């Protein structure tokens, strides 16, 4: 077999194995939206841990981080900092959010806003905003899948067709599996991910430079200053680092992340998960090692996102490229599945159902959600085919948007009564500011992350509007406050 055929066959094999696991696990589930979307709220410590953690191991972690360290150097370290801090936040606000979810039967981020602020416009906007950030994230996964198939086929399969094929497979996977199935596939994915992280993070430096230390020593010699900030960039300074880490640590606002809190059996499980979760970030450090090695192994690549796979291709045998590619494909598919599932639940339950005027039967709602899966994936694929943003660039954009939900989420847990209008205006202002700065290529803005600027605008508007219009409708008081 040619190297390309070997690599591709292994990728297909791993993806098929994953899909089979998902399909088998899903046979135990019931055909309603609650089971499909939050697995009947019945997942235990280990499955929730894996599902939550699964969200940290995405294509972004494999290709994006190594690609950024390759092209930008030091600023990439933000990725090692913000996740652990985000879990510190979840440690505190996760359990009360879970309590509310349990008490009111909540499934989505928009449900939460609906209960907290009782404003239909705000709910719809949160749902739509949530879908937008998820589509950005999905675009990242689709792009990643395209890169994997492209490099593994030794450029014989173009990125476009690869993305289309990958999207079709993932769509079928989501519709047949539901969340329970995905959680089980997550296990396979994470084992593979940790395996390849060790392989490429320690193995490659060992083979080429006699160890991680040797690799770093050579890198520091050849590229002095590259591994500190601003590294290979001019504008990603310490200010950028602080603001970006702060904005990104609010990732609880990602609708799929928020939803995964509801899948736990108890609030205590959420909290114990948050304690352990930063350990799950350790493999990302290995990916950074691998990215650093690829700077030395394959210098002068135009696209950083290709660095890791190209380095693997020149260092390791084709079958290992296949295993890495397969694992990489799963790290795109599983999170993509969770994200599309969340987006479609938001669309069906929080946008379409109210528009159709009231209650729909559970079966119809589930069907509608499945139709939305196809629509959301189609949209992401379209964007992925027509955009050239880097993987990390896409993710930073999504995080900037997500952070704008945070004031609404957190204020609902406090005894402060904030009017829905204030939350709404703040959110819209924050979204617009961050979106404008990003689209106008003014991010970072005077060294500040665009999402951080957006968040500042968001809070200013929120407090201004709130002090103008005294809160009439109260928000509920948190379970432990």
């Amino acid at each position: 077999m040619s190297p390309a055929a070997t690599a591709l066959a292994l990728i297909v094999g791993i993806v098929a194995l994953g899909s089979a696991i998902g399909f088998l696990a899903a046979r135990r589930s019931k055909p309603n939206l609650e089971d499909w979307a939050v697995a009947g709220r019945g997942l235990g410590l280990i499955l929730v841990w894996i599902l939550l953690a699964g969200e940290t191991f995405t294509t972004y972690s494999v290709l994006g981080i190594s690609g950024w360290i390759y092209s930008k150097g030091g600023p990439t370290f933000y990725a090692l900092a913000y996740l652990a801090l985000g879990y510190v936040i979840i440690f505190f606000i996760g359990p009360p959010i879970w309590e509310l979810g349990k008490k009111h039967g909540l499934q989505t981020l928009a449900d939460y806003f609906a209960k907290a602020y009782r404003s239909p416009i705000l709910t719809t906007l949160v749902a739509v905003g949530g879908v937008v950030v998820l589509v950005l994230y999905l675009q990242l996964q689709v792009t990643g899948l395209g890169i994997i198939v492209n490099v593994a086929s030794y450029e014989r399969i173009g990125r476009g067709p690869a993305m289309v094929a990958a999207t079709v497979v993932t769509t079928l996977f989501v519709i047949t599996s539901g969340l329970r199935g995905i959680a089980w596939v997550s296990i396979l994915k994470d084992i593979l991910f940790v395996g390849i992280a060790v392989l490429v993070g320690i193995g490659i430096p060992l083979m080429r430079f006699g160890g991680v230390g040797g690799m770093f020593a050579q890198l520091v010699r050849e590229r002095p200053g590259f591994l500190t900030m601003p590294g290979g960039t001019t504008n990603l300074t310490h200010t950028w680092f602080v603001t970006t880490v702060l904005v990104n640590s609010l990732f609880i606002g990602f609708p799929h992340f928020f939803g995964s809190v509801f899948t736990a059996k108890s609030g205590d499980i959420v909290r114990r998960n948050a304690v352990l979760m930063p350990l799950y970030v350790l493999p990302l450090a290995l990916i950074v090692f691998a990215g650093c090695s690829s700077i030395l192994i394959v210098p002068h690549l135009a696209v950083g996102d290709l660095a890791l796979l190209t380095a693997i291709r020149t260092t390791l045998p084709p079958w290992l490229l296949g295993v890495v590619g397969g694992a990489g494909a799963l790290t795109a598919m599983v999170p993509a599945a969770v994200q599309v599932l969340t987006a479609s639940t938001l669309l069906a339950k929080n946008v379409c159902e109210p528009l159709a005027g009231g209650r729909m039967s559970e079966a119809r709602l589930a069907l509608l959600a499945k139709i939305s899966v196809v629509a959301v994936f189609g949209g992401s694929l379209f964007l992925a085919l027509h955009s050239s943003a880097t993987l990390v660039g896409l993710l930073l954009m999504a995080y900037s948007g997500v952070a704008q939900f945070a004031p609404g989420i957190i204020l609902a847990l406090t005894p402060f009564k904030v009017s829905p209008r204030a939350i709404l205006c703040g959110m819209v202002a924050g979204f617009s500011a961050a979106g404008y700065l990003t689209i106008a290529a003014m991010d970072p803005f005077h060294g500040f992350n665009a999402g951080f600027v957006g968040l500042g605008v968001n809070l200013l508007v929120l407090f201004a509007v709130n002090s103008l219009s005294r809160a009439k409708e109260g928000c509920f008081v948190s379970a432990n406050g």
Partner: protein
Amino acid sequence: MVPFVATCFTVSLWDRVDPMIFGLPFNMAWLVAWLVLTPGLMAIAYRIERRR
């Protein structure tokens, strides 16, 4: 919260390559160390809250 101070606000203090620790640049080693220390701190907080 300690981890926030340690890994976010004080970046200019630890963002440097020397001294190398276990062959890692200093900034890298610092962040990896906090990935282990952060769960430790949260576990302590969890214990304390449990007892109350």
